[in-house]
């Protein structure tokens, strides 16, 4: 039963990883930009929620109503003001720019908030759980996290599949110069993609902050998990990212069950194993660029 418990907790943890990973995948898919500051931006969102909570004493979940739009605005401005300028010089300039941004965010947070660990208060839901059997209880917070992840991914999938903005995002991802010929301002579309990306990672950051403690330098570790979730699931597949997050989550909780020291290691090992067995991930995008 302990193993079942570990697996269930891992599945729920996967929801959090998916929230943290989706934006990374989206931005890579649309503009081939690897955002090395993605994890730090999630942490930044958590700190922003912290500021709101200290000012208002509200519930952490309510802070999402402000944090998400704010981070979307940050994403739009960041892309239009800085990152768009780096995209034309090949793969290296955006990597360097986002790496630099990560350093700036980490040290900025350190200066303002010190290195102390912080947590977000979401009230009773943090500890409330549903007892299924004597040995199996699932927390409402992880359930909520996974539910939110599914809703966010489903919403994003609908947006991409059914709306003109979604078609334009996919068209720009396919071929940005050709998209310009359709009257699409690719720089605006890139900024919209980054806004969506930071909106999703803001949700992930706040849920992370409710679930566990966080500090100014926690971003890179989150980035690695996010990367692994994206790669396991297959680049460009939203639901794949959810499955990737779940695989990673289960690997970690099962590893933890074997020995608490193996938790992180087990996740990385499963990631490496999948890279060897299926380098394109579990759900590679069905349609590739036409020859």
């Amino acid at each position: 039963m302990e193993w079942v418990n570990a697996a269930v907790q891992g599945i729920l943890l996967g929801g959090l990883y998916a929230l943290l990973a989706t934006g990374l995948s989206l931005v890579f898919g649309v503009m081939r930009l690897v955002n090395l500051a993605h994890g730090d931006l999630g942490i930044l969102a958590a700190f922003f929620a912290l500021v709101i909570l200290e000012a208002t004493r509200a519930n952490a979940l309510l802070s999402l109503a402000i944090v998400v739009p704010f981070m979307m605005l940050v994403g739009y401005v960041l892309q239009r003001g800085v990152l768009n300028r780096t995209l034309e010089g090949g793969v290296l300039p955006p990597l360097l720019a986002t790496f630099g941004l990560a350093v700036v965010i980490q040290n900025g947070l350190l200066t303002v908030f010190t290195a102390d660990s912080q947590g977000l208060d979401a009230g009773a839901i943090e500890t409330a759980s549903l007892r299924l059997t004597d040995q199996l209880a699932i927390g409402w917070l992880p359930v909520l996290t996974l539910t939110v992840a599914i809703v966010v991914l489903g919403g994003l999938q609908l947006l991409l599949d059914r709306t003109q903005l979604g078609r334009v995002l996919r068209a720009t991802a396919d071929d940005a110069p050709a998209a310009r010929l359709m009257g699409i301002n690719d720089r605006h579309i890139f900024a919209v993609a980054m806004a969506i990306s930071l909106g999703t990672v803001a949700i992930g950051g706040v849920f992370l902050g409710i679930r566990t403690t966080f500090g100014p330098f926690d971003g890179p570790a989150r980035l690695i998990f996010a990367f692994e979730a994206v790669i396991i699931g297959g680049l460009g597949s939203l639901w794949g990212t959810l499955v990737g997050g779940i695989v990673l989550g289960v690997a970690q909780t099962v590893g933890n069950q074997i020995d608490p020291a193996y938790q992180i290691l087990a996740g990385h090992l499963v990631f490496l194993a999948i890279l060897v067995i299926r380098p394109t991930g579990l759900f590679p995008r069905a349609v590739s660029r036409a020859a």
Partner: protein
Amino acid sequence: MSGLAERAGPAVATGAAPILAVDRVSSFYGDFQALFDVSLEVAEGETLAIVGANGAGKSTLLKVIAGLVPAGGGEVRFDGASLARVAAHERVRRGISLVPEGRRVFPSLSVDENLRVGAYRARPGRWTIAAVRELFPVLADRGRRSAAVLSGGEQQALAIGRALMANPRLLLLDEVSLGLDPIVVKQLYAALPQIRAAGTTILLVEQNIDQALTAADRVSCLLEGRISLTGRPADLTREQITAAYFGV
């Protein structure tokens, strides 16, 4: 060969104001100069074909007009207004659409989605998905198929249809026939009269001289980045065109 050139002459006999005026445009790729002081005018409703060998600068000229490549000198005017400060994506709204070389359909979108994206900044006009399907019946029953799995000819039809969805006043066609079966090329060119009937001005680039002569009101020849000849198909002799095409 300059004796054959009829530079900057009136676009058509009616003397209508040109919808497109390319005025001494040069273009550079680094140190390489692709266009040298190219000037031409296209009247509203006219079809002008630009022929020339590989590397003559035909595609570059279309890219300059569409805004994908900056003019390194000179000016492009559309409907009397300079396009110097108008970004490529804004030119669509003004009524310029380019069907790019190699078709460049969006592979991860379906046929219908490609058409819908083509209407992103559409002007009002007659071209709708239904009208495009009527023009190219081959697209009609493939609406939900991925554009990536279409044949080359179908993709070209889609690329043209996608450009029409913006209801352009000026349609730029870059090498429609490239790499396609002659029968398919004929079918595609058969659509031009209907496009023209909507009042659309067409500037097309072709390596295939015969196809260009059949389709166009006037033909300009581009040789190593310079206009070497302009005239009506009926007024030009084979020898003149060959000379202007190959520079011999």
